[in-house]
């Protein structure tokens, strides 16, 4: 299931490319083999225990601004 929750990387084992992500204080074991150069503090999208993409905070902000603009114009 494509749960779209951005979670923060809080632990990385560089050798095994695994670690943990945190969402509202709950932690889940996550595999980082699909992303290069993951760092603690990165926001990632996790699918079935694997981080599949990094969240681009600037783009996220842009989309939010767009949504707000549409809401305000109405």
């Amino acid at each position, binding site marked *: 299931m494509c749960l779209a929750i951005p979670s923060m990387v809080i632990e990385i084992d560089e050798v095994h490319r695994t670690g943990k992500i945190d969402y509202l204080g709950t932690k889940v074991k996550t595999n980082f083999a699909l992303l290069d150069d993951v760092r603690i503090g990165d926001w990632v999208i996790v699918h079935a225990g694997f981080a599949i993409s990094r969240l681009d905070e600037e783009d*996220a902000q842009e989309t939010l601004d767009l*949504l707000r603009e549409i809401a305000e114009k109405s």
Partner: protein
Amino acid sequence: MARTNEFRDKKVIGALLARIAENKRSLPSPCRIMEVCGTHTMTVHRYGLQSMLEKAGIEMVSGPGCPVCITPGEVHEAAIRLVTENENVILATFGDMTRVPTHLGSLQNAVPAKGSAVKIVYSPEESLDLARQKRNKEIVFFGVGFETTIPSIAVMAKAAAGEELSNYSILSALWLIPPPLRAILESGEVKLSGFLYPGHVSAIIGQEPYAFVAREFGFPGVIAGFEPGDILLGIISILDQIREGRPRVANEYTRVVRPEGNPVAQALMREVLEPKDACWRGLGVIPGSGLKFKAEYSAYDTEVKHDLRITARGIDLPGCRCGEVLRGILPPSRCPLFAKKCTPESPCGPCMVSFEGACLVHYKYRGPKS
């Protein structure tokens, strides 16, 4: 980062819907959009968007985007046989796989042979951990998925090979999203105005694999995220493309999807797997629409290791019309079994089982009768 709530804000949703209704009014023809991904179907229904969109003149149609659903019965039956006919096999799989009905019942009501068991996992990694911990058991990961899940399965096969884990293999049902889109367009069975492309499949494959939809068939499409706001922004983009007469692959999920996708994941898929012609439930055999393990990974391919010889036909159990639902030609509520003989408690087909199955989503989020 509790930002996601703003994508669900009532005021934002209201404004987006108003804009959609306004943009739609200037278009002459009816507008029917296929949401290819089951999670999109879920968002559309969970937030009650479908009825609001209908009022705005937009019809949403569910597509083949549920891997549990499109996996033919014969593959599920092979999994049931593995665990009921062989001792000391642990079959690890995702939760909704265990309830798919077949000629042999389901994994959940199967009685495993001595020492065998079915284990539900959230991540493929858990299945590999099992193989590491239980060396006296044969661990089979029954892995199904689209491009979102496939790279993680490639990682598992590589890791198993690296550690020379002789008690681990993967029964795979790996499906690619672009080929069935072509099949649906070529068949012309369902009149569409555009596609909502799956956000997380796109995070892996990028934009290019959908380019043929606009180029060869002239249909608009948009990559969208999974919040209500994401989906509505996507629909606005499709309406814009229709109005401008400029179909393309738009991306409204830039915070997660890069134009090129995820190159690391793509390279892993190419390294471990190769394309095959695959049989989909309802859609039949589609050229190049599946992936299988390359010869050097055959030791980890359950079909080879356990000599399974699965012949998939992709047809439904008697009475079930999941195949037509998956092709987008039968809305779940028009199936004669829907909510009568077929319910989540006693499902007749996979679309009533999977969290992303169109029938379950339509059933679960239906409103009270007025």
